[in-house]
């Protein structure tokens, strides 16, 4: 009950931030429109709506990480979190309370992306529902990264680090370009990271390539568990250090 209560507070904090709608919802749609236009003008397959929409839905989760990390870092800097930590709510429960609304926002973001993509020619099928389900582990992973940043860094540092994450993910995520253009070396490094697998899983769901989903999802789930566990450890250590 206390986890849900605090999750409600975190949702309100983000929802009542005027920039949240712009960055979390309007920006991904704007990117979709621009990149979709590039696709139509160039005919590049990477920019076809069936590949672009799921890629962008995953990429947009990086902005959710930014908001999550900023919220947690900001709370850490204020005594408000001191009050919450003094309550019976456990450290793990606290981080789950941050994660729940962020994951929900990430999935809502995916819905907005797919709806916008339907106006650009993406066919409405049951596969889109599957794609949203497949987005969930990726959302948990990005949220975990955001919470790890928020646990370890100050508010201003989180902004810089999240910007770095967004830029880095742009290149290694394969969201709108084939990893082959990076060359074998960089592509191999990118395949060790979860970002391209998250995009691959979402694309496989949208196109109905169900056999390809499992392997990609395992990468995302593994990173999600590891990152979230690490954020609990780091947060607990930082908060106990006083």
């Amino acid at each position: 009950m206390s986890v849900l209560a605090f999750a409600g507070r975190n949702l309100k904090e983000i929802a009542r931030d005027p920039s949240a709608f712009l960055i979390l919802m309007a920006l991904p749609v704007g990117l979709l429109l621009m990149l979709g236009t590039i696709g139509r003008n160039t005919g590049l397959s990477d920019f076809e709506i069936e590949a672009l929409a799921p890629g962008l839905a995953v990429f947009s989760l990086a902005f959710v990480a930014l908001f999550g990390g900023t919220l947690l870092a900001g709370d850490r800097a204020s005594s408000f979190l001191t009050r919450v930590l003094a309550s019976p709510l456990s450290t793990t429960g606290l981080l789950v309370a941050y994660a729940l609304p962020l994951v929900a926002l990430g999935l809502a973001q995916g819905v907005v992306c797919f709806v916008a993509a339907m106006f650009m020619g993406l066919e409405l099928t049951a596969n889109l529902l599957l794609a949203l389900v497949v987005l969930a582990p990726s959302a948990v992973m990005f949220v975990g990264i955001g919470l790890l940043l928020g646990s370890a860094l100050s508010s201003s540092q989180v902004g810089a680090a999240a910007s770095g994450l967004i830029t880095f993910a742009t290149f290694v995520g394969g969201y709108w370009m084939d990893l082959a253009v990076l060359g074998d070396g960089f592509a191999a490094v990118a395949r060790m990271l979860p970002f391209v697998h998250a995009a691959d899983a979402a694309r496989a769901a949208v196109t109905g390539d169900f056999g390809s989903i499992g392997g990609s999802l395992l990468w995302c789930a593994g990173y999600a568990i590891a990152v979230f566990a690490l954020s609990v450890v780091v947060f607990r250590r930082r908060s106990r250090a006083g």
Partner: protein
Amino acid sequence: MAGQATHGPGRRPGGERAPTFLPDTAGPAIELDHLTKSYGKRVAVDDLSLTVGRGEFFGLLGSNGAGKSTLVRMLCGLTAPASGDARVLGMSLRTDATAISRRVNLSPQETAVAATLSVAETLELVARLYGASRAEARSRALDVMESLRLGDRARDRAKSLSGGLERRLSLGMALITKPDVVFLDEPTLGLDVRSRRDLWALLAGLKGTTTVVLTTHQLEEAESLCDRIAILRDGRLRGVGAVADHLASTGAATFEDAFLALTDEEAGA
């Protein structure tokens, strides 16, 4: 009368502070047993042992770096002691921290409100963090807002409140959970004299029902509210007792002189 401290709420005309806390039949509310905490080479709390009775209004005084906040953080379970133990309401800090957290609360020095939540939402959130249902949290929030005269600001965002109202809200957040022990860190910091007196009157109402541990730099505040006061320096206990006890032990005419004598660097070891 010579040496008479300034009157505050609850003081007898003769200047004596009548003990108002409950007899220690249920065991002390807080019992420190050689509690120690270090941050690297700096010893913040040094082998501290003392007791606080149930329902007592207990003051913690000391200069900056005396160890007051560190002690409160340990007792609230926010940081672990390096050695020693403490029992809060009979429960060990080392083994029963979660159980303790259900029965204590604190109001930090920074008012620490949730800026974008309304006054009512903030109070309900704290109640629910401590296990209250939605309906119970709403009911308690109404009671607290009424008793702290925040009812007309129920829907206002916490960040829109003046300093005095924010302090009242902070106090409300500490009391809405009906704690057996509440820690108040500089509850009147930054308030004007009228707001400070108002808050003192509210705090005095807690006597006998809630064990209050008050940390403050304001000697007048400690004199006016506290049944007993512990004076710390460099993490060590320099003296504990009622104001009259400190005056007697130091031979000082005023509590300020007694405080300065007890925290004198040369009087140290």
